[in-house]
């Protein structure tokens, strides 16, 4: 699958409320290409609910339902049941939520939907913060990152949502990233073809939230993968397969890049470099990533 093979059809319409350089709209365009128009999207409170733009207009050319912050998966369960009752089983139901709505406040509804094997795709675009409300920390915010609620840098490490999802033993789950549109497209396409609960998480570097130049969204995603801060993988029928550069890192065929190559371009980590380099904290980040990959190797190699 090359870029030129991706469908021309667009269900995202230009002129929305998204910031310039937004990873959410970037990812959404490819997701819409993979699923096509026969879908219903459920969006809780998050940037995307704003990106839709203002009543009576919307920038999304597909049926979209907005719902409370904690309720994406519950709302999707209801929509799926309603469509099933009407015999519209060929319509794909997609819950599209942020990391706050997934890792934190929406985890209960999500876990319930996965346990009931609701036939839908849950997509989390992970910008590692509550960006819509002004950059607060979430369970997905990495250690040492500045947010407006962690002014000296976050003191905890982020949760491994992928492993929480896998413990529900759903038929399909995957991690991908905005910088790899073919990978994203293939994963969404595959999820669409499988019955039952599917979960896809997209790494989504956010320029205003992470404090980097708006032209660097793609680079920030690529570096998240190449430094091993983020991993591309698929979980299918209980088997985990790593993809792309992440596969090479897992197999030891390439070394992951130093984390500095990623964080030094992000203002949210500026306090680790200015006025003086915080060698200890940078080392702590590196160690945490190494431990994660050790665990990945033990479990999935």
């Amino acid at each position, binding site marked *: 699958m090359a*870029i*030129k093979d*991706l469908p*021309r059809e*667009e269900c*995202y*319409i*230009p*002129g*929305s*409320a*998204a910031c*310039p*350089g*937004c*990873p959410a*709209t*970037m990812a959404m*365009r*490819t997701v819409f290409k993979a699923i096509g128009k026969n879908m219903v999207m459920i969006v809780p409170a998050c940037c995307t609910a704003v990106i*839709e*733009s*203002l*009543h*009576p*207009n*919307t*920038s*999304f*050319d597909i049926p979209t339902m907005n719902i409370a912050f904690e309720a994406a998966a519950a709302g999707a369960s209801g929509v799926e049941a309603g469509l099933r*009752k009407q015999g519209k089983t060929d319509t794909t139901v997609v819950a599209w939520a942020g990391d706050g709505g997934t890792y934190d406040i929406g985890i209960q509804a999500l876990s319930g939907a996965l346990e009931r094997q609701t036939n839908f795709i849950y997509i989390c675009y992970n910008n590692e913060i509550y960006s819509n409300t002004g950059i607060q920390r979430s369970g997905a915010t990495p250690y040492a990152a500045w947010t407006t609620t962690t002014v000296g840098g976050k003191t905890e490490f982020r949760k491994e949502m992928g492993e929480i999802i896998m413990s529900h033993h759903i038929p399909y789950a995957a991690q991908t990233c905005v910088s790899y*549109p073919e990978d994203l497209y293939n994963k969404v396409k595959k999820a669409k073809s499988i019955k039952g609960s599917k979960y896809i998480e997209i790494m989504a570097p956010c320029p205003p939230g992470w404090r980097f*130049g*708006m*032209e*660097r*969204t*793609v*680079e920030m995603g690529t570096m998240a993968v190449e430094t091993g801060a983020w991993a591309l993988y698929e979980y299918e029928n209980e088997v985990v397969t790593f993809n792309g550069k992440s596969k090479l890192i897992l197999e030891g065929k390439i070394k992951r890049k130093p984390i500095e190559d990623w964080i030094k371009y992000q203002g949210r980590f500026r306090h680790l470099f200015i006025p003086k380099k915080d060698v200890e904290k940078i080392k702590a980040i590196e160690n945490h990533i190494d431990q994660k990959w050790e665990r990945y190797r033990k479990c999935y190699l």
Partner: protein
Amino acid sequence: MKKYKISTTISYPVKGAMGRTGNWRVFKPILDKEKCVKCLRCWIYCPEATIIRNNDDTVDIDFEYCKGCGICANVCKVKAIIMEREGKKK
């Protein structure tokens, strides 16, 4: 099946739901068609869907809504797109 009356707010899809977002631009992407190798990277990565993919896979830019983020210029491997300050005298 029992039918219920539903009343809710519904929005309809339109181009420029937030107005002419091209006005947000500080820098403008300038495309050199001679250099373009039709790789379509700018098309797939543009967050605003304002890189227009033509039938022959050449590209054009929709300046009415392009927000000037500069991603297209950044992902173009042959430097067929450069960013120029808006209103710069030629």
